[in-house]
């Protein structure tokens, strides 16, 4: 038999690779157990992806289609709207993820340090995450309404502004508004992850640091952060993968406007498909977005492998 080197959970070992039919006969039930899930994944992931890629090779006008090969990709990649949308996506994702991590970690530290009311506060902080994204976005849409919205009313009452602010009326403020709503919604998840990580840090490390005269900032920098490093990397990478695919909040609040100021790639895809009825080009945008997400996924896998390998 041939020997094969395999990596299992980051630990390298050698396992003999069986070749005999008898050996396969002993293992067939393992494949049988996995088969239903594999079929399900094929049905909900592989088949739609293949169909999307196939659609991207056609010029689709409603129910009329013409094969154009890579023509849709050429059109999309030579369209300024695509590159503008990619830029908006990167800005939206970068700002949202950075704020998710910062505020999530801050809230986790706060909850971890509290000696009382931890559970009710945890539930309170989790509430935005429990609200359906479209519902939350609709609520914020009315809160930010220039003439009748609560936000402008409170700001004017506090004399912070003298005239109503059109939060969703200008590209800059609209992008800031959708980032704020996404942060409101996304922070609880990161907070939960960080809180779980904080609770695994051995108390002895903090005690040792305190004995050595470390300040609060030094304990955070030299004890908390190193212990949370792996979790921060995993959480931020997963958050990037999730945020760059977001449609719901922006779709409800601004539909990508005004003047394309919040038109992230998923919104561009939706508008191209369902407003312009160019399904072939929309599928091409979808494939481009998939490539982008896959790139981040590869980074995620590499980072998790590096962190799990035992040191020499």
């Amino acid at each position, binding site marked *: 038999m041939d020997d094969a080197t395999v990596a299992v959970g980051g630990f390298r070992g050698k396992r003999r690779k069986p070749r005999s039919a008898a050996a396969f006969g002993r293992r067939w039930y393992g494949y049988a157990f996995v088969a239903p899930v594999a079929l399900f994944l094929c049905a909900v992931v592989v088949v739609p992806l293949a169909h999307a890629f196939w659609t991207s090779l056609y010029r689709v006008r409603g*129910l*009329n289609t013409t094969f154009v090969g890579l023509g849709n990709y050429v059109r999309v990649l030579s369209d300024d709207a695509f590159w503008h949308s990619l830029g908006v996506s990167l800005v939206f994702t970068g700002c949202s993820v950075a704020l998710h991590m910062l505020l999530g970690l801050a809230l986790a530290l706060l909850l971890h340090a509290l000696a009382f009311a931890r559970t009710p506060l945890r539930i309170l902080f989790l509430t935005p995450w429990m609200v359906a994204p479209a519902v939350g976005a609709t609520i914020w849409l009315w809160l930010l309404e*220039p003439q009748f919205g609560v936000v402008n009313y409170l700001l004017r009452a506090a004399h912070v502004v003298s005239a*109503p602010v*059109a939060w969703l009326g200008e590209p800059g403020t609209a992008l800031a508004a959708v980032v704020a709503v996404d942060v409101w919604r996304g922070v609880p998840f990161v907070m939960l992850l960080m809180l779980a990580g904080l609770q695994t840090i051995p108390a002895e490390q903090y005690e040792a640091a305190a004995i050595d005269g470390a300040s609060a900032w030094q304990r955070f920098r030299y004890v908390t952060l190193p212990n949370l490093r792996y979790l921060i990397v995993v959480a931020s990478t997963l958050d990037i993968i999730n945020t760059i695919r977001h449609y719901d909040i922006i779709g409800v609040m601004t539909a990508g*406007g005004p003047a394309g100021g919040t038109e992230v790639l998923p919104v561009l895809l939706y508008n191209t498909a369902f*407003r*312009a*009825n160019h399904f072939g080009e929309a599928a091409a945008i979808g494939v481009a977005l998939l490539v982008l997400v896959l790139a981040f996924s590869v980074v995620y896998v590499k980072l998790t492998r590096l962190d799990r390998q035992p040191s020499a």
Partner: protein
Amino acid sequence: MMTRSTIRATLAVAFASLAIAPSIAQQPIVLQWQTANLTESQYEPVWKKTIAEFEAANPGIRIEPVLVARKDHWTKFVAAAQAKKAPCIVSVDLTTAAYNGYLMPLDKYWNAEPAAFRNAYSPAMLSAAKWKGHLYGVPIWGGTYADIYNRDLVVKAGLDPAKPPKTFADYIAWGKRLTGNDHWATAVLGGKTDTTTRVLLTWIWANGGEAFNDDMTEATFAKDPKSLAAIKTYLGFAGATGIAAPAPTTTNYLEQTTLFAQGKIATMRNAYWAVAKVEGDNRAMKGKMFVAPNPANVPNAPTLATMTASSISSSCPHPDEAWKFIKFDAGKKWSIERAVVSNWMPLRNDLANDPQIRADPLLAEFVKIGEHARSYPLPSPIWADIAANDIVDAVQRALLAPDKTDEIFRDLDARLTKKLRDI
């Protein structure tokens, strides 16, 4: 050899099947009906009555309304149509839907109807419901765009309701008198729906301009100097002229009518249905509105009249029954009901002198204004796309950067012309 228990079981199943079969056979045909207006409160009492009376007269047919918000109406229809599961009866952008293969031609049903039914519609009205010579919808109702004023605010500003503005300069003079602290003369529509495009077109036509050439192969928003001048005047209301409410890029029909109902703006360019919407928002506004033709810089300038038609989707499995409902809904009774209750203008040419129609002075005025109107949507298969996306995008950019209006609309002309020639 079969045992007794097997024989009994077989007989039991057979009898049960015989009992169920008639009830299965008697299941009514269910037709889905989708139009953006089913979710509007002013239409709700009318469509519920329509369905109830139709089902009572046709026990084998059940109408299932598909309720969807206005801004999602087209996308929901397209998604269903692509899957060949669109609702049977729909009211959508007819030319675009027909071009995409989403609608069924109705010629065979139309031609089979008696002359009395067919003659209720003018040739001009029917031509707006045709694509490549085939009829794809029955005109059901419409809306003529004019200027609706709040009489109290006009009088309070020292203006005479009997002498509304006739030219752009008159309108601006009125606008300045109607604008004050936290209230404005009007609102500029710049939100992401095709209502933005409708109102823009009324201003362009009122200045003698054209947004497209005759065969819709070229856009002339900037190329036509009268069109460009009108655009700058209209969008300037929210800028230099300062007579429009703030945040125009997020102002759609809903925001505009709410502002009007709350007395924040004194006038709005809208159709007759807005009267019912405003009265629904604020009962105190009943009887306090008057309507006037759009001010114009050229004689006999046309306004815009929308035409909504009921169509049958190409994937409908029961087109005969769908036609029955469309014919029922297009009848005189429901046309009058929609006009009186929902304020939707009838498109039948045999109702202009109906006493119930004439009894409403506002409706009568709209009918008169509508005698000189151009049909909307414009006859292009990509109209749904360019009206709600490209033109709105240009309007929003021009509102945010007024000094670049020329450049923005020149780019729009180039982009639209390319799209129109790429059909």
